[in-house]
């Protein structure tokens, strides 16, 4: 094949078939991908544990299963074990009726077990490795600042780039796996210093700290795949990434990536590269977008309500897309408990499901708050609510969420954290 990139002798040999036909196709895919973006070369991964986005065994994704089979037959594995996005189902903690189970088991996730068996053969870390927040301390797939990584999952990529200062393009499913197998990725975009410079200045001029998921949405819808440099958040979040800032940036980033295509943001005086380089990160001629209370209101007003009955009483509430951190589990436990008490209720009035990584849940279970959370009637699971919602039956339910990502991809209706608490905890007049 013809290519433009400068390849090493080893990369050229693989491309010519020295390691077999399947590795040849893996390398060919990466080279074509790099050439499309005028990448000058491949660069080695410095943090080799990948994070894969395709965690669900949907019957229809035959091309993925075929590729996995081909990799396994060729004896190809990743150099280091990888983490995965969350599983789609958990019947123990997210109850489903007979018909829902029938749809999930017989029509949708028919390949879940087979696919997980394939993943284990290629390099899956372990049974707890299923979370979109692999970068949390308890999960432990944490690249350092400057590390070159081969990840997918839009919320994880934007977090790794922005909050950890790692370097990763917005890779698609399979591309992330191929980079991890080859140990190299094409050098372009967010891997380069120039590609990490900001095209936009976002000036936050709100009367209080913006809802993370709405600010992220407003930014994503405006800048699409560009890099924003956000000013005016440090008065609210401080200048160190503590647990609160980590959770805020996680949720804001997920909304920028799903409502737009943001792979990297900088927050002045807070995120690592903004602290190091300051406004030198802003490109000459960058555009400015002011986010004030009105912009946030307009952003929410623009969300279509997909419920069939727009006045329906919610039947289910999902909190935790992306998965909640340990501090967020503590915060939600406290908020649910306090609001129930305030409203004179003992249990949540809407079936409420909190989602978090298996390793985070294990840590949470060791705390007193776990018992307190269960007392509220809420349940805890590690599924991907997006994958759970992607069936015709769940789609017809009036589901509420505080996740802008879940709203974007499903029929779920978005509410702010405060609105979620009011409805879930049975505030009068709601």
């Amino acid at each position, binding site marked *: 094949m013809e290519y433009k990139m400068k390849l090493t002798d080893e990369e050229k040999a693989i491309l010519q078939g020295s390691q077999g036909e399947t590795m040849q*196709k893996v390398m*060919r*895919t990466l080279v*074509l*991908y790099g050439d*499309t*973006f005028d990448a000058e070369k491949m660069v080695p991964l410095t943090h080799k544990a990948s994070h894969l*986005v*395709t965690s669900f065994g*949907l019957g*229809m*994704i*035959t*091309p*993925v299963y*075929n*590729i996995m089979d081909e990799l396994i037959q060729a004896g190809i594995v990743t150099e280091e074990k990888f983490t995965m996005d969350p599983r789609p189902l958990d019947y123990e903690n997210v109850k489903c009726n007979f018909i829902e189970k029938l749809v999930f088991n017989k*029509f*949708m996730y028919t390949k879940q077990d087979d696919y997980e068996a394939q993943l284990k053969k290629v390099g899956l870390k372990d049974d707890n490795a299923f979370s979109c927040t692999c970068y949390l301390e308890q999960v432990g797939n944490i690249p350092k600042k400057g590390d070159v990584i081969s990840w*997918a*999952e*839009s919320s994880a*990529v934007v977090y790794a780039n922005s909050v950890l200062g790692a370097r990763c*393009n*917005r*890779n*698609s*499913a*399979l*591309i*992330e796996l191929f980079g991890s197998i080859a140990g190299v990725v094409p050098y372009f*975009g967010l891997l380069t210093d120039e590609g990490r410079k900001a095209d936009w200045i976002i000036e936050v001029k709100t009367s209080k700290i913006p809802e993370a998921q709405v600010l992220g949405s407003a930014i994503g819808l405006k800048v*699409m*795949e560009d890099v924003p440099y956000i000013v005016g958040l440090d008065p609210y979040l401080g200048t160190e990434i503590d647990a609160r800032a980590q959770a805020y940036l996680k949720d804001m980033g997920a909304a920028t*990536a*799903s*409502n*737009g*295509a943001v792979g990297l943001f900088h927050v002045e005086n807070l995120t690592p590269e903004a602290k190091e380089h300051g406004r030198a990160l802003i490109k000459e001629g960058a555009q400015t977008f002011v986010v004030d209370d009105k912009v946030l209101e307009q952003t929410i007003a623009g969300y*279509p309500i*997909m419920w069939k009955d727009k006045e329906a009483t919610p039947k289910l509430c999902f909190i935790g897309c992306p998965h909640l951190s340990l501090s967020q589990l503590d915060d939600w436990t406290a908020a649910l408990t306090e609001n129930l008490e305030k409203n004179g209720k003992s249990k949540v009035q809407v079936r409420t499901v909190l989602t978090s990584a298996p390793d985070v849940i294990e840590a949470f279970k060791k705390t007193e708050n776990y018992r307190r959370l269960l007392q509220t009637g809420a349940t805890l699971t590690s599924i991907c609510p997006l994958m759970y919602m*992607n069936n015709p039956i769940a789609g017809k339910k009036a589901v509420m969420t505080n996740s802008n990502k879940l709203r*974007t*991809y499903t029929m779920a209706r978005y509410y702010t954290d405060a609105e979620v608490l009011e409805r879930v905890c049975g505030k009068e007049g709601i």
Partner: protein
Amino acid sequence: MAKEFKGRVVLAEDWSGEAIVSTVGVNTLATFQKSAMKNNPKEALCGDQNNPELYGRNLTGKALCLPQTIGSTTGGMVLQTACDMGIAPAAMLFSEHIDSLAAAGIILAAVWGKNQIIAIDCLGEEFLAYVKSGMRVQIDKDGTVRVEG
């Protein structure tokens, strides 16, 4: 009267057919997931509630004209799967530089699959302002796109 635009070839063949246009970024997962989950789907009706220009419209076999794709990083795999199922657009004509997810889907389909999606990018803002859904487009292998008004 036909108007001609010149883009960069990502994957090209001679082709002509109907255009369908989104002037905003196309969210691949949101667009294709509902149709792809059906048993033996024959067409891809756009399921992206945030895209009123495309929502509910059939994309299969058409030239999807767009700035870029956006959204989840499953996007490339979803596009590859739609291509494998035979419900993908025949061509994707990008006014801007192709994004990483669309590029992945098109390359994965070409290297590992049996079907392909024609892709031309960098066609420019004027292209997207001119082309309208229902117009006929003719694509040449060299990246020339003629839009018949």
